[in-house]
Protein backbone atom coordinates (compact mmCIF):
# COMPACT_ATOMS: atom_id res chain seq x y z
CA UNK A 1 0.00 0.00 0.00
CA UNK A 2 1.43 3.37 -1.02
CA UNK A 3 0.25 6.93 -1.34
CA UNK A 4 0.16 8.54 -4.71
CA UNK A 5 2.94 11.13 -4.87
CA UNK A 6 0.91 13.80 -6.61
CA UNK A 7 -1.53 13.96 -3.75
CA UNK A 8 0.94 13.54 -0.93
CA UNK A 9 0.87 17.18 0.14
CA UNK A 10 -2.88 17.25 0.25
CA UNK A 11 -2.95 14.05 2.26
CA UNK A 12 -0.47 15.45 4.76
CA UNK A 13 -2.59 18.54 5.24
CA UNK A 14 -5.68 16.44 5.81
CA UNK A 15 -4.87 13.11 7.44
CA UNK A 16 -8.53 12.11 7.35
CA UNK A 17 -8.33 12.11 3.55
CA UNK A 18 -5.53 9.61 3.37
CA UNK A 19 -7.76 6.63 2.73
CA UNK A 20 -8.64 8.19 -0.59
CA UNK A 21 -5.12 7.77 -1.88
CA UNK A 22 -4.48 4.21 -0.90
CA UNK A 23 -3.66 2.27 -4.03
CA UNK A 24 -3.76 -1.36 -4.97
CA UNK A 25 -2.18 -3.56 -7.59
CA UNK A 26 -4.37 -4.41 -10.55
CA UNK A 27 -3.95 -7.81 -12.18
CA UNK A 28 -1.55 -6.36 -14.74
CA UNK A 29 0.67 -4.89 -12.01
CA UNK A 30 -0.50 -1.33 -12.66
CA UNK A 31 -1.14 0.79 -9.57
CA UNK A 32 -4.66 2.09 -9.25
CA UNK A 33 -6.65 3.81 -6.57
CA UNK A 34 -8.90 1.82 -4.34
CA UNK A 35 -11.41 4.65 -4.18
CA UNK A 36 -11.67 6.60 -7.42
CA UNK A 37 -14.05 9.55 -7.52
CA UNK A 38 -17.01 9.35 -9.85
Amino acid sequence: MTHQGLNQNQAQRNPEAQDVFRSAEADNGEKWLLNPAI
Partner: protein
Amino acid sequence: MLGCSKAKWHGREAFVLVNDLVHLVTLTGGGHIAEFRFRERKGLSTLNPLWVPPWKTIEPYHYRPGQHAARYGSPATGRTLSGITGHNLCLDFFGSPSEEEARQGLSIHGEAPSLRWRKERIGVRPQEVSLKLSVRLPVAELRFERELTLRRGESVAYFEETVKNERKADHFFHWTQHVTLGPPFLDSQASCICVPALKGRTYPHGYEGKELLRSSYDFKWPRAPDLQGNFVDLTQPFIRSGKGFVATALLDPRREIGYIAALNREANLLFGYCFHRSDFPWAVSWEENRARRYPPWNGRCQVRGIEFGSTPFPLLRREAFAQGPLYGTGHFSMVPARGSRTVQYVSFLAAVPEDFAHLRGLRLTDSEILLCDARGRDRVRVRASGLAATSLAKKS
Protein backbone atom coordinates in the same frame (compact mmCIF):
# COMPACT_ATOMS: atom_id res chain seq x y z
CA MET B 1 -50.89 5.24 -25.34
CA LEU B 2 -50.00 5.06 -21.67
CA GLY B 3 -48.51 2.11 -19.84
CA CYS B 4 -45.94 0.48 -17.61
CA SER B 5 -44.65 -3.04 -17.98
CA LYS B 6 -41.90 -5.31 -16.82
CA ALA B 7 -39.12 -5.76 -19.37
CA LYS B 8 -35.50 -6.75 -19.92
CA TRP B 9 -32.90 -4.07 -20.59
CA HIS B 10 -29.46 -5.37 -21.66
CA GLY B 11 -30.30 -8.58 -19.81
CA ARG B 12 -31.34 -6.69 -16.64
CA GLU B 13 -34.72 -6.66 -14.91
CA ALA B 14 -36.47 -3.40 -15.77
CA PHE B 15 -39.73 -1.52 -15.96
CA VAL B 16 -40.64 0.55 -19.00
CA LEU B 17 -43.01 3.50 -18.75
CA VAL B 18 -44.39 4.82 -22.01
CA ASN B 19 -46.74 7.48 -23.27
CA ASP B 20 -47.42 8.59 -26.82
CA LEU B 21 -44.18 10.67 -26.88
CA VAL B 22 -41.50 9.14 -24.68
CA HIS B 23 -40.16 5.94 -23.21
CA LEU B 24 -38.43 5.64 -19.82
CA VAL B 25 -36.59 2.58 -18.52
CA THR B 26 -35.78 2.05 -14.85
CA LEU B 27 -33.90 -0.93 -13.44
CA THR B 28 -34.76 -2.83 -10.28
CA GLY B 29 -31.05 -3.61 -9.77
CA GLY B 30 -29.89 -0.33 -8.21
CA GLY B 31 -32.93 1.69 -9.27
CA HIS B 32 -31.09 3.40 -12.12
CA ILE B 33 -32.89 5.37 -14.81
CA ALA B 34 -31.30 3.73 -17.83
CA GLU B 35 -33.13 5.36 -20.73
CA PHE B 36 -35.29 8.40 -21.31
CA ARG B 37 -35.93 9.22 -24.92
CA PHE B 38 -38.47 10.20 -27.52
CA ARG B 39 -40.25 7.39 -29.29
CA GLU B 40 -39.96 7.08 -33.08
CA ARG B 41 -41.73 10.12 -34.46
CA LYS B 42 -41.03 12.34 -37.40
CA GLY B 43 -38.59 15.12 -36.65
CA LEU B 44 -37.66 14.03 -33.12
CA SER B 45 -34.33 12.58 -32.10
CA THR B 46 -34.60 9.20 -30.40
CA LEU B 47 -31.15 9.48 -28.75
CA ASN B 48 -30.95 8.37 -25.14
CA PRO B 49 -28.90 11.09 -23.41
CA LEU B 50 -28.05 8.88 -20.46
CA TRP B 51 -24.71 7.10 -20.25
CA VAL B 52 -24.58 3.38 -20.90
CA PRO B 53 -21.20 1.97 -19.80
CA PRO B 54 -19.07 0.22 -22.43
CA TRP B 55 -18.86 -2.82 -20.16
CA LYS B 56 -21.59 -5.40 -19.74
CA THR B 57 -23.38 -4.66 -16.50
CA ILE B 58 -24.94 -7.22 -14.17
CA GLU B 59 -27.53 -7.12 -11.45
CA PRO B 60 -25.30 -5.50 -8.80
CA TYR B 61 -26.78 -7.58 -5.99
CA HIS B 62 -25.24 -10.59 -7.75
CA TYR B 63 -21.72 -9.08 -7.48
CA ARG B 64 -19.31 -11.43 -5.69
CA PRO B 65 -15.69 -10.28 -5.15
CA GLY B 66 -14.13 -13.61 -6.09
CA GLN B 67 -16.10 -13.80 -9.29
CA HIS B 68 -16.39 -10.16 -10.36
CA ALA B 69 -13.56 -8.03 -8.86
CA ALA B 70 -11.24 -8.62 -11.82
CA ARG B 71 -13.88 -7.31 -14.22
CA TYR B 72 -15.49 -4.49 -12.20
CA GLY B 73 -12.97 -3.63 -9.47
CA SER B 74 -12.79 -4.38 -5.77
CA PRO B 75 -16.08 -4.24 -3.80
CA ALA B 76 -15.51 -0.64 -2.63
CA THR B 77 -16.18 0.49 -6.20
CA GLY B 78 -16.88 -2.65 -8.21
CA ARG B 79 -20.13 -3.55 -6.51
CA THR B 80 -21.62 -0.25 -7.67
CA LEU B 81 -19.83 -0.15 -11.04
CA SER B 82 -21.00 -3.66 -11.91
CA GLY B 83 -24.55 -2.34 -12.28
CA ILE B 84 -24.16 1.37 -12.93
CA THR B 85 -25.85 3.17 -15.82
CA GLY B 86 -27.63 6.46 -16.52
CA HIS B 87 -29.11 8.26 -13.53
CA ASN B 88 -27.96 6.75 -10.23
CA LEU B 89 -29.01 7.52 -6.70
CA CYS B 90 -26.32 8.31 -4.11
CA LEU B 91 -27.95 8.00 -0.71
CA ASP B 92 -26.52 8.24 2.78
CA PHE B 93 -23.07 9.01 1.42
CA PHE B 94 -21.79 10.57 -1.78
CA GLY B 95 -18.38 9.17 -2.66
CA SER B 96 -16.27 6.28 -1.50
CA PRO B 97 -16.73 4.26 1.66
CA SER B 98 -13.92 4.38 4.18
CA GLU B 99 -11.66 1.37 4.39
CA GLU B 100 -13.58 0.19 7.45
CA GLU B 101 -16.94 0.68 5.71
CA ALA B 102 -15.65 -1.13 2.63
CA ARG B 103 -14.71 -4.06 4.84
CA GLN B 104 -18.36 -4.17 5.90
CA GLY B 105 -19.37 -4.47 2.26
CA LEU B 106 -20.28 -0.85 1.45
CA SER B 107 -19.51 0.42 -2.03
CA ILE B 108 -19.19 3.83 -3.64
CA HIS B 109 -22.28 6.10 -3.29
CA GLY B 110 -23.96 3.93 -0.67
CA GLU B 111 -26.19 0.91 -0.65
CA ALA B 112 -29.00 1.97 -2.99
CA PRO B 113 -27.12 1.50 -6.30
CA SER B 114 -26.33 -2.12 -5.54
CA LEU B 115 -29.53 -3.36 -3.93
CA ARG B 116 -32.60 -4.85 -5.55
CA TRP B 117 -35.47 -2.37 -5.55
CA ARG B 118 -39.03 -3.62 -5.13
CA LYS B 119 -42.09 -2.65 -7.09
CA GLU B 120 -44.67 -1.09 -4.77
CA ARG B 121 -47.36 -0.28 -7.33
CA ILE B 122 -48.20 0.62 -10.88
CA GLY B 123 -50.95 3.18 -11.33
CA VAL B 124 -52.69 3.80 -14.64
CA ARG B 125 -55.20 6.64 -14.83
CA PRO B 126 -56.76 8.33 -17.87
CA GLN B 127 -54.07 11.03 -18.06
CA GLU B 128 -51.02 9.45 -16.40
CA VAL B 129 -49.11 6.32 -15.57
CA SER B 130 -46.93 5.90 -12.52
CA LEU B 131 -44.55 3.37 -11.05
CA LYS B 132 -43.43 3.32 -7.44
CA LEU B 133 -40.25 1.47 -6.47
CA SER B 134 -38.75 1.20 -3.01
CA VAL B 135 -35.58 -0.02 -1.37
CA ARG B 136 -34.48 -0.45 2.24
CA LEU B 137 -30.89 0.38 3.14
CA PRO B 138 -30.07 -1.97 6.02
CA VAL B 139 -26.81 -0.32 7.07
CA ALA B 140 -28.09 3.26 6.88
CA GLU B 141 -31.46 2.21 8.31
CA LEU B 142 -33.18 4.34 5.71
CA ARG B 143 -36.11 3.40 3.53
CA PHE B 144 -36.34 5.05 0.12
CA GLU B 145 -39.31 5.34 -2.25
CA ARG B 146 -39.34 6.79 -5.75
CA GLU B 147 -42.52 7.33 -7.76
CA LEU B 148 -42.09 8.04 -11.47
CA THR B 149 -44.98 9.47 -13.48
CA LEU B 150 -45.50 10.14 -17.17
CA ARG B 151 -48.48 12.14 -18.39
CA ARG B 152 -50.20 11.83 -21.74
CA GLY B 153 -48.67 13.95 -24.52
CA GLU B 154 -45.70 15.17 -22.45
CA SER B 155 -41.94 14.61 -22.65
CA VAL B 156 -41.59 15.07 -18.90
CA ALA B 157 -40.90 12.51 -16.16
CA TYR B 158 -42.13 13.52 -12.70
CA PHE B 159 -40.11 12.24 -9.73
CA GLU B 160 -41.29 12.09 -6.14
CA GLU B 161 -38.82 10.62 -3.66
CA THR B 162 -39.19 9.99 0.05
CA VAL B 163 -36.49 9.05 2.55
CA LYS B 164 -37.75 7.52 5.78
CA ASN B 165 -35.54 7.28 8.84
CA GLU B 166 -36.01 4.04 10.75
CA ARG B 167 -33.72 5.14 13.58
CA LYS B 168 -34.74 6.72 16.86
CA ALA B 169 -32.27 9.54 16.21
CA ASP B 170 -32.02 12.31 13.62
CA HIS B 171 -30.00 11.24 10.63
CA PHE B 172 -27.61 13.43 8.63
CA PHE B 173 -26.83 12.16 5.18
CA HIS B 174 -25.94 12.88 1.57
CA TRP B 175 -28.54 12.75 -1.19
CA THR B 176 -27.33 13.21 -4.76
CA GLN B 177 -28.87 12.47 -8.15
CA HIS B 178 -25.85 11.14 -10.01
CA VAL B 179 -26.94 11.83 -13.58
CA THR B 180 -24.43 10.60 -16.14
CA LEU B 181 -24.47 11.39 -19.86
CA GLY B 182 -22.50 9.80 -22.64
CA PRO B 183 -21.98 9.41 -26.37
CA PRO B 184 -23.51 9.59 -28.88
CA PHE B 185 -25.74 12.26 -27.28
CA LEU B 186 -22.78 13.85 -25.57
CA ASP B 187 -20.20 14.87 -28.11
CA SER B 188 -17.23 17.22 -27.83
CA GLN B 189 -18.30 19.24 -30.89
CA ALA B 190 -22.08 19.06 -30.96
CA SER B 191 -22.95 19.17 -27.25
CA CYS B 192 -22.79 21.57 -24.35
CA ILE B 193 -23.62 21.41 -20.65
CA CYS B 194 -25.96 24.05 -19.23
CA VAL B 195 -25.84 24.72 -15.49
CA PRO B 196 -26.92 28.04 -13.88
CA ALA B 197 -23.97 28.17 -11.50
CA LEU B 198 -22.03 31.17 -10.26
CA LYS B 199 -18.84 29.77 -8.89
CA GLY B 200 -17.17 26.49 -8.27
CA ARG B 201 -14.24 24.66 -6.78
CA THR B 202 -12.14 21.88 -8.20
CA TYR B 203 -11.81 18.56 -6.42
CA PRO B 204 -9.16 18.41 -3.68
CA HIS B 205 -7.66 15.09 -4.75
CA GLY B 206 -6.82 15.41 -8.43
CA TYR B 207 -7.68 12.51 -10.71
CA GLU B 208 -5.21 9.69 -10.11
CA GLY B 209 -2.41 11.53 -11.89
CA LYS B 210 -4.59 12.08 -14.98
CA GLU B 211 -6.26 15.30 -13.82
CA LEU B 212 -7.25 17.97 -16.29
CA LEU B 213 -7.76 20.61 -13.56
CA ARG B 214 -5.73 22.11 -10.72
CA SER B 215 -6.84 20.78 -7.35
CA SER B 216 -8.73 22.77 -4.68
CA TYR B 217 -9.09 25.88 -6.80
CA ASP B 218 -11.99 28.34 -6.71
CA PHE B 219 -13.19 29.51 -10.09
CA LYS B 220 -15.99 31.44 -11.77
CA TRP B 221 -18.23 28.90 -13.49
CA PRO B 222 -17.65 27.53 -16.10
CA ARG B 223 -13.98 28.52 -16.57
CA ALA B 224 -11.82 26.24 -14.44
CA PRO B 225 -8.00 26.29 -14.37
CA ASP B 226 -6.00 23.45 -15.88
CA LEU B 227 -2.57 22.39 -14.64
CA GLN B 228 -0.84 24.91 -16.93
CA GLY B 229 -2.92 27.81 -15.62
CA ASN B 230 -5.10 28.06 -18.72
CA PHE B 231 -8.86 28.10 -18.35
CA VAL B 232 -11.03 25.23 -19.47
CA ASP B 233 -14.71 25.76 -20.33
CA LEU B 234 -16.53 23.03 -18.40
CA THR B 235 -19.67 23.46 -20.51
CA GLN B 236 -17.82 21.59 -23.25
CA PRO B 237 -17.63 17.82 -22.76
CA PHE B 238 -14.65 15.59 -23.50
CA ILE B 239 -12.06 18.31 -23.98
CA ARG B 240 -8.87 16.27 -23.56
CA SER B 241 -8.63 12.55 -24.10
CA GLY B 242 -6.72 10.72 -21.39
CA LYS B 243 -7.83 13.19 -18.70
CA GLY B 244 -10.55 13.41 -16.07
CA PHE B 245 -11.77 15.76 -13.38
CA VAL B 246 -14.25 16.43 -10.61
CA ALA B 247 -15.45 19.96 -9.82
CA THR B 248 -18.38 21.31 -7.87
CA ALA B 249 -20.55 24.31 -8.70
CA LEU B 250 -22.88 26.34 -6.51
CA LEU B 251 -26.22 26.74 -8.22
CA ASP B 252 -27.40 30.35 -8.40
CA PRO B 253 -28.82 31.13 -4.93
CA ARG B 254 -31.14 33.78 -6.41
CA ARG B 255 -33.18 31.05 -8.07
CA GLU B 256 -35.63 28.87 -6.15
CA ILE B 257 -35.55 26.35 -8.98
CA GLY B 258 -32.24 24.82 -9.93
CA TYR B 259 -31.66 22.98 -13.15
CA ILE B 260 -29.07 21.04 -15.06
CA ALA B 261 -29.26 20.34 -18.78
CA ALA B 262 -27.31 19.26 -21.80
CA LEU B 263 -27.88 20.09 -25.44
CA ASN B 264 -26.95 18.27 -28.61
CA ARG B 265 -27.09 20.86 -31.41
CA GLU B 266 -26.99 18.33 -34.23
CA ALA B 267 -29.88 16.32 -32.82
CA ASN B 268 -31.67 19.54 -31.71
CA LEU B 269 -32.30 17.76 -28.45
CA LEU B 270 -32.17 19.23 -24.96
CA PHE B 271 -32.31 17.03 -21.87
CA GLY B 272 -32.57 18.36 -18.35
CA TYR B 273 -33.78 18.24 -14.78
CA CYS B 274 -35.53 20.91 -12.65
CA PHE B 275 -35.58 20.74 -8.87
CA HIS B 276 -35.80 22.84 -5.72
CA ARG B 277 -32.44 24.44 -5.14
CA SER B 278 -33.10 24.16 -1.41
CA ASP B 279 -33.10 20.36 -1.81
CA PHE B 280 -30.12 20.17 -4.13
CA PRO B 281 -27.90 23.29 -4.11
CA TRP B 282 -24.84 21.67 -5.70
CA ALA B 283 -24.05 20.47 -9.21
CA VAL B 284 -20.94 18.32 -9.37
CA SER B 285 -19.28 17.77 -12.73
CA TRP B 286 -17.35 14.55 -13.18
CA GLU B 287 -15.68 13.62 -16.40
CA GLU B 288 -13.87 10.42 -17.30
CA ASN B 289 -12.39 10.75 -20.78
CA ARG B 290 -10.40 7.58 -21.43
CA ALA B 291 -8.14 8.33 -18.43
CA ARG B 292 -8.50 5.22 -16.28
CA ARG B 293 -6.80 2.23 -17.80
CA TYR B 294 -7.86 -0.40 -15.25
CA PRO B 295 -11.09 -2.41 -15.02
CA PRO B 296 -13.85 -1.72 -15.65
CA TRP B 297 -12.84 1.54 -17.35
CA ASN B 298 -10.02 0.07 -19.47
CA GLY B 299 -9.14 3.36 -21.15
CA ARG B 300 -12.22 3.38 -23.37
CA CYS B 301 -14.84 5.20 -21.34
CA GLN B 302 -16.26 8.66 -22.02
CA VAL B 303 -18.79 9.89 -19.49
CA ARG B 304 -19.82 13.21 -17.95
CA GLY B 305 -21.67 13.27 -14.65
CA ILE B 306 -23.86 16.25 -13.74
CA GLU B 307 -24.60 15.26 -10.20
CA PHE B 308 -27.08 17.53 -8.43
CA GLY B 309 -27.46 17.04 -4.75
CA SER B 310 -27.12 18.03 -1.14
CA THR B 311 -23.36 17.76 -1.05
CA PRO B 312 -20.53 19.58 -2.86
CA PHE B 313 -17.99 16.80 -3.34
CA PRO B 314 -17.83 13.00 -3.49
CA LEU B 315 -15.49 12.38 -0.55
CA LEU B 316 -15.21 9.95 2.30
CA ARG B 317 -18.07 10.77 4.62
CA ARG B 318 -15.67 11.61 7.45
CA GLU B 319 -13.84 14.05 5.21
CA ALA B 320 -17.02 15.60 3.82
CA PHE B 321 -18.43 16.31 7.29
CA ALA B 322 -15.07 17.60 8.55
CA GLN B 323 -14.88 20.08 5.66
CA GLY B 324 -18.15 21.78 6.63
CA PRO B 325 -20.21 24.16 4.46
CA LEU B 326 -18.81 25.62 1.27
CA TYR B 327 -19.64 29.21 0.29
CA GLY B 328 -21.97 29.37 3.29
CA THR B 329 -24.19 26.72 1.71
CA GLY B 330 -25.31 23.46 3.30
CA HIS B 331 -23.51 20.22 2.60
CA PHE B 332 -25.89 17.51 3.79
CA SER B 333 -29.56 16.56 4.21
CA MET B 334 -31.34 15.70 7.43
CA VAL B 335 -34.24 13.42 8.24
CA PRO B 336 -35.58 13.46 11.80
CA ALA B 337 -35.86 10.45 14.09
CA ARG B 338 -38.53 8.10 12.72
CA GLY B 339 -39.41 10.91 10.29
CA SER B 340 -39.40 11.32 6.55
CA ARG B 341 -38.39 13.82 3.90
CA THR B 342 -39.88 14.13 0.41
CA VAL B 343 -38.52 15.87 -2.68
CA GLN B 344 -40.08 16.46 -6.08
CA TYR B 345 -38.30 17.14 -9.34
CA VAL B 346 -38.78 16.62 -13.05
CA SER B 347 -36.72 15.47 -15.98
CA PHE B 348 -37.56 16.60 -19.51
CA LEU B 349 -36.70 16.17 -23.15
CA ALA B 350 -37.18 19.07 -25.54
CA ALA B 351 -36.91 19.33 -29.30
CA VAL B 352 -35.30 22.73 -29.87
CA PRO B 353 -34.90 24.90 -33.00
CA GLU B 354 -31.77 24.40 -35.09
CA ASP B 355 -30.34 27.75 -33.98
CA PHE B 356 -30.85 27.05 -30.25
CA ALA B 357 -27.22 27.34 -29.13
CA HIS B 358 -27.27 27.18 -25.33
CA LEU B 359 -29.86 27.13 -22.56
CA ARG B 360 -29.67 30.54 -20.88
CA GLY B 361 -32.61 30.24 -18.52
CA LEU B 362 -35.61 28.22 -17.56
CA ARG B 363 -38.84 28.89 -15.72
CA LEU B 364 -41.77 26.80 -14.66
CA THR B 365 -45.47 27.59 -14.70
CA ASP B 366 -48.41 25.40 -13.61
CA SER B 367 -48.35 23.64 -16.94
CA GLU B 368 -45.12 24.34 -18.85
CA ILE B 369 -41.35 24.37 -18.71
CA LEU B 370 -40.23 27.49 -20.58
CA LEU B 371 -36.73 27.57 -22.03
CA CYS B 372 -34.77 30.54 -23.27
CA ASP B 373 -31.55 30.95 -25.19
CA ALA B 374 -29.61 34.05 -26.23
CA ARG B 375 -32.26 34.78 -28.90
CA GLY B 376 -35.19 35.07 -26.59
CA ARG B 377 -37.21 34.37 -23.52
CA ASP B 378 -39.60 31.41 -23.40
CA ARG B 379 -38.46 30.36 -26.86
CA VAL B 380 -39.25 26.70 -26.30
CA ARG B 381 -42.28 25.52 -24.37
CA VAL B 382 -42.42 22.02 -22.94
CA ARG B 383 -45.87 20.91 -21.85
CA ALA B 384 -45.84 19.81 -18.21
CA SER B 385 -49.40 19.82 -16.88
CA GLY B 386 -48.40 17.77 -13.86
CA LEU B 387 -46.42 20.69 -12.42
CA ALA B 388 -49.60 22.16 -10.96
CA ALA B 389 -49.81 19.27 -8.52
CA THR B 390 -46.20 19.66 -7.39
CA SER B 391 -44.36 22.13 -5.19
CA LEU B 392 -42.25 23.21 -8.19
CA ALA B 393 -44.77 25.35 -10.07
CA LYS B 394 -44.37 29.13 -10.10
CA LYS B 395 -41.22 29.02 -8.01
CA SER B 396 -38.77 30.13 -10.67
